[in-house]
């Protein structure tokens, strides 16, 4: 069971293990079934790599992830300005609020999560209440008509400071990178413990 690391891309097993594996592989009859030792074809490796990239790219939370309360904070503040209060039409009022908030760091998210004045009237007291408490609005999610703590937002140290705050685009992604990495390392280790793919077993006495 000893490991060797001289040629890790060829095999991680020592000669003794490889030879015993070869003997077993050729001698054993698994109900008349035999197996070859072909490598994972290069196009398949590329396809798997493409799948991993696609998985992250297509699930990137540009579409559909619920917004945080932080993106509406400026809107809520703007609602109390005399200029906005003076506007009679809700449509005109929200258009003016949006125009006033141009240049906000949340512009891209606000475009994907548009609201009406009626929506803002529901959100306003909740956001103001949270602001009074002094909490970070980026931790709070807008779920329908409610502004709630709806996500694991990281651990706090004993002194009350945050270990790491998840940015809006990374709610569940970092953990996935670790998860995938462990998987691929594990599978590569298993595969590389096999005899090198340059060796093919002989089935029925026929040399390959």
């Amino acid at each position, binding site marked *: 069971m000893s490991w060797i690391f001289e040629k890790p891309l060829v095999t991680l097993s020592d000669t003794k293990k490889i030879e015993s594996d070869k003997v077993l592989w050729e001698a054993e009859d698994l109900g008349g079934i035999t197996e070859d030792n072909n490598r994972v074809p290069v196009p398949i490796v590329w396809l798997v790599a493409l799948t991993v990239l696609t998985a992250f790219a*297509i699930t990137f939370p540009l579409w559909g992830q619920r917004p945080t309360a932080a993106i509406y904070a400026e809107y809520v503040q703007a609602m109390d300005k005399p200029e906005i209060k003076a506007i009679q039409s809700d449509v005109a009022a929200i258009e003016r609020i949006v125009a006033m908030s141009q240049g906000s760091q949340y512009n891209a998210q606000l475009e994907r999560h548009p609201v009406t004045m009626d929506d803002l009237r529901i959100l306003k007291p909740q956001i103001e209440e949270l602001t009074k408490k002094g909490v970070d609005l980026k931790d709070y999610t807008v779920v329908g008509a409610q502004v709630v703590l709806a996500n694991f937002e990281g651990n706090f140290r004993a002194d009350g400071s945050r270990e790491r705050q998840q940015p809006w685009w990374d709610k569940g992604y970092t953990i996935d990178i670790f998860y995938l990495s462990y998987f691929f390392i594990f599978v590569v280790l298993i595969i590389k413990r096999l005899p090198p793919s340059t060796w093919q077993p002989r089935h029925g006495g026929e040399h390959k």
Partner: protein
Amino acid sequence: MLKYLFAKNEDIPAGSSAIYFGFSSIVWFVIGTGLGSFNAAKLAFPDAFVGGGEFFSFGHMRQVHVHAVIFGWISMAFAMAMMYITPVLGNTKLWSEKLGVWNCTLWNVGLSLGLTVLWAGMTSGREYSDFPWFIDLYLAVAVFIPLAVNVWMTILTRRTQGIYTTNWFFAAATFMVIIVFIVGNLPEFFHLTGLTEAYLTWWFAHNVLGLWITPVAAAIAYYTIPKVTGNPLYSHRIGHLHFWSVVVFYSTPAAHHLMSSPLPEWLKSFASVEGVLILVPAIAFVSNILLTMQGKWNMFVENLEVRFTVTGCLLAIPLNMQGGFQQTRAINWYVHGTGWIVAHAHLALLGFSTFLEGAAVYLGLQTLMKRKLYSLTLGNVHFWMLLIGFSIYWISMTIAGLIQGAGKIYEVPYIDVVIAEHPYMIARWLGGTMVFISNIVWLYNMWMTAREGTVVPAGRMPHEMAYER
């Protein structure tokens, strides 16, 4: 078969439990697709078929159809394959034929009871785990645990040093399905409600597909293709990639069924990435099987079992392309809650899975009964009616789903959507009814094979002999 319930294990002929499971599965397939055809008729011809009391209402009948197909046809065909293939691959006998016969009897009794209570309206109302809690417990204790014991003990008492890929999947799946059944039904045992119930409902539903149906169906193909073609499995290494990626990537995306729910965003994002990554085992599986076919593609035309298996394997491509992407937030927004999902579920269960295990039942019953298939013509009729019927169903429901999605997004009045999709409901009924009729043909063909099939000499496989009819 019932006489073997109280016989000594050594007095029960080898293969008895597999034959019992095989015929039971076909009977449940006929019943399940018959119910499906009836349900589809209610949607296609509502003026003629809606009515008849609560027992024949769609809400009652649909659950009976779904559970008859999943736990009758699919799962019993899997059990048949396990009772037959597991010992063969270990060069040994099944650990206990008696346990297998009891297992099949208790399975048929429990399923009949479960479907009866569903029909009567006693349901948990949780999709795919609609059985009430006492039926869930019964299925775990009397169905899945005995099955796992028999499979595991057969593998542990094998006469080979190694374990072939198929048996990795069988062993893992029989273990995982017990966990899925017990943990997934916790909301019923302990009356969990709200988001916890929703999550565990879809944890169950997702993993019954991902850790039971998908891996076992694939495992069957790993046996059927090398066995019938005589080719070695193309790559033991790809087998590793397939097996471990099923365990790692298929077990985690349950939350992608609830993308619009107030589950934590991190959980949904994580599940969504894993959801796309179900393409990894799919790529590994399809490539390994198709590469194993090298030099034997003539058998795709000539051999019924190979044709069933390769068709199922090819259907894994659209299945996983749909499954991988339809759960992402952007696409789920459009197709969630529409007929698209119904079409996808049938692609998984009636397409991919059914074709793979159909091959195992054909091959296993002929081999164990030592009888050549009674009629190749009827076998071909079964294959083509099944494939065409399924295709009509799948395509029509996919189109209906896209119409429903558009109606949902653009807030079209519901009745207008119902009218727009009516032609596709008729097509759905036609396709489903073709599947139902094809299964009656299959049951007749296998019954006649048992009674009048040409005897296969000892040491020969059925597919090695020419057809006489």
